[in-house]
């Protein structure tokens, strides 16, 4: 049995897990990320929502209830975590625009506006109101994008359809990375007589070089071009995941891919390792400290059974705000379902409450009381709490 030794082992490769690991790796600590597979970040719009409950996210955070996990993190940490994120993804060739001081909108595939904060540069030109006219380019056979939704809400929009020969977001994105395809597409676009203020695309404009592709089209068409996030699988989500993954690897972190944690090894109040049953790879990964960033229900950090809710890695106590009858409100759209408050409660050092383990820290959407949909605080909360958890973890390791 091979045994690998790390200072810190992070469970989960989403935005929280990768950001926490990078933070520690930069401090020259030996870090591993252990993941059972692709994170839910790949399903996301890629945009970093910080807090959508107002125009100014930082002020909105201060109005969140005191039990909200954002309130565990001081404003300076939030600000620096988000600034650092922007520097990181810029360096990885995936620039994000916007500022933590102010929210902005992105146009959705339904024609509505989603409030977000830091957005990929490919969504920079997304209209902030209904007045600008749009020309939407879509692709024959694309299942999850219907310009009719947007056009019916904006009287000043038109669309045209390009037959790319493929019809999934993944294959379209791959095609846009090919020179021949892209040149042929540009020739077609030139003939479309586009007179509208802006050109909109479903978010399929490449995977590695989306920023350049958008820029090229924009220069050629002589008007701003932007992407509209699609339903999963989402290319902007995947780009974000790739950029964070690359950053961690560049900083010397290891990623154990397809490594579902099935158990732990512990001595007294200290976790010593996480283990897996899989063959052909090390059966256990030793660490001095552990960061739980395994996500919530979709990510797989928490599981609901008919008899209760469990945290799957360390079996930490789960904060459940009420009986099963209260987990789901009668009104689907209330955004107030009790289930959104379920999670792991943490203290200001991002240690889980109610456990005797000394060396676990927790961050991201698994945190209790987050109500991510209601508060519009997905990736922003992940980045801020990852930074706080990593800081506490580094302090613990330095002792």
């Amino acid at each position, binding site marked *: 049995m091979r045994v690998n030794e790390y200072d810190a082992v992070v469970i989960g490769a989403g935005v929280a897990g990768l950001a926490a690991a990078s933070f520690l790796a930069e401090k020259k600590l030996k870090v591993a990320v252990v993941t059972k597979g692709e994170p839910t970040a790949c*399903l996301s719009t890629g945009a970093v929502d910080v807090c959508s409950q107002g125009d100014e996210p930082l002020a909105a955070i201060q109005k969140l209830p005191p039990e909200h996990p954002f309130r565990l993190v001081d404003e300076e940490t939030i600000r620096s975590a988000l600034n650092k994120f922007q520097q990181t993804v810029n360096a990885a060739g995936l620039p994000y625009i916007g500022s933590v001081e102010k929210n902005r909108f992105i146009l959705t595939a339904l024609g509505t506006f989603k409030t977000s904060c830091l957005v990929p540069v490919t969504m920079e030109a997304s209209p902030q109101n209904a007045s600008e006219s749009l020309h939407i380019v879509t692709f024959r056979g694309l299942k999850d994008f219907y310009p009719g939704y947007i056009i019916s809400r904006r009287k000043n929009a038109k669309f045209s359809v390009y037959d790319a020969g493929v019809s999934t977001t993944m294959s379209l994105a791959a095609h846009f990375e090919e020179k021949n395809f892209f040149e042929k597409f540009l020739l077609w676009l030139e003939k479309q007589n586009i007179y509208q203020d802006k050109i909109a695309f479903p978010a399929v404009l490449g995977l590695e070089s989306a920023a350049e592709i958008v820029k090229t089209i924009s220069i050629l068409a002589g008007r701003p071009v932007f992407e509209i996030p699609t339903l999963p699988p989402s290319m902007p989500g995947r780009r974000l995941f790739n950029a964070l993954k690359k950053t961690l690897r560049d900083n010397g972190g290891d990623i154990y891919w397809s490594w579902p944690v099935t158990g732990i090894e512990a001595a007294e109040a200290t976790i010593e390792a996480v283990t897996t049953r899989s063959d052909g790879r090390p059966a256990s990964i030793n660490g001095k400290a552990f960061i739980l960033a395994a996500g919530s*229900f979709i990510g797989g950090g928490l599981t609901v059974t008919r008899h209760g809710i469990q945290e799957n890695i360390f079996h930490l106590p789960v904060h459940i705000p009420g009986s099963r009858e209260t987990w789901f409100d009668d009104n689907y759209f209330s955004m107030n379902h009790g289930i959104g408050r379920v999670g792991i409660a943490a203290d200001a050092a991002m240690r889980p409450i109610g456990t005797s383990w000394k060396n676990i820290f927790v961050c991201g959407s698994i945190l209790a009381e987050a109500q991510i949909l209601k508060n519009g605080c997905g990736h922003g909360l992940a980045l801020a709490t990852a930074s706080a958890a990593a800081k506490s973890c580094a302090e613990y390791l330095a002792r």
Partner: protein
Amino acid sequence: MIKTDVIIIGGGATGCGIARDLALRGIPHCLIEKGDFAAGATGACHGLLHSGGRYVVTDPVAARECYEENLILRKIGQKCVEQTGGLFVRLPGDSRRFREIFLRRCDEAGIPAEVISASKALELVPNLNPRIEEAIKVPDCAIDPFRLCMLNIRTSELNDALILTRHKVTEIIKSHGRCVGVKALDQTTAETREIRANVIINATGAWADTIAALAGCHVSLTPVKGSLVITNHRLTNMVINRLRHPSDGDIIVPNEAVCLAGTTSIPIEDPDKTSTDFQEVETIIGEAAKMIPHFDDTRIIRAFSGVRPLLKSVKTDSHEISRGFQIIDHQNGLFSIVGGKLTTFRLMAEKMVDRVMNVFNLKRPCTTAEIPLDGQEDLSGYPLSRRLEDLKNIVCECELVTRQQVKKIIRQTGTKNVGDIQHRTRLGMGPCQGGFCTFRALGIMNDMNVISPEESMNILRGFLQRRYKGIRQVLWGDQLREEQLVEYIYLGVLAMEKPNARE
């Protein structure tokens, strides 16, 4: 104003069956349904074509009717019946005396019943509880109630009958004390139509008293709620019944790729206000798991309730109320047909139309038991080779529904309702319960320019709320994960709750 001979109110199995019978006997008619076909008890049942075994001990007459109709439907409706066969399984502790009565009564009613050993039963259905004592094999079948209604109504359509779905009867017009017509509100356009006829048939199931009241009449009913759950897998290829007195959660029926299990039996007040509660779901899973243990950890994709329009009875246990049916002549041109079961819908229609023939003084025999259902030739399966060709155009991955199919339904019916597409194609009936494909189906409507932005948002809202009602009692495990993803897509990625920001 439209004139016809007979008005049928209600588009469930009974109403559609009456329409077909009238069509085959050459009587002009009009069917009015307030929602879509099979929207009431018809669409909210097990989809079990009874062998009669279930009722043979408590109601031998109904049981015999069931078996006779079972034979007829297998013959005339091959494309909506799956001849699965059924087992009545006896678990340790279940009454042996009940078994003896069951076998004797089956013999008396002429229902084939073969006792087989536990090991033979396990060969037939490997998922069965290995601890069963024995099983009795009966000719139960699975039936698709939506398809059944569509095929019945097809005959009427071919005979130019007027079929009005999404029309609500708001008034029964009377003249000199007789019912001479109805006013029906088109729920899509809000226009009212007036239709006149000599005979009006109230086939509205649990709503029979509400409709009868429009004519100043009364129908005594005990509306009884029955709840069911749907699994994500087909856990058995045969219908599984518990060999005991009819009780909660004693039937599991395979249907296409899934199984339905239930039911419960709870008398209720208002058929429009039904919901399934957590305890019912627990009961059904608990009981079903006694017969198929795997039920306990299988993924449940939906729970729903239907309302049986049972005849009023003094018996207190609603499982014991007769499943027989009754035709009430209100002596003013209005008839109500109540009670009965899905399995006996054709017989009910035959008896009803016999009465109508008396009114018209005509002697044309019923032929619905001999002539195969119309339109079955269009249902010739979906071979793998064609599925693979269509792969790019599949908009509902769970149930393999193509873009072309959706477009065809929209063109044919002019529908603005996702439910109509669902009933006709199975779109949205799989594990995601329409989470992905409804956005697509509505997107196609949007691109075809048949709905306005307000309509599209309202339809989406209405759909998501209804969908949620069906799944909130079964949210755990993977179904909860799927639900959270769907919620994230609509409320997060698509921001549908903030449609008016900065507009």
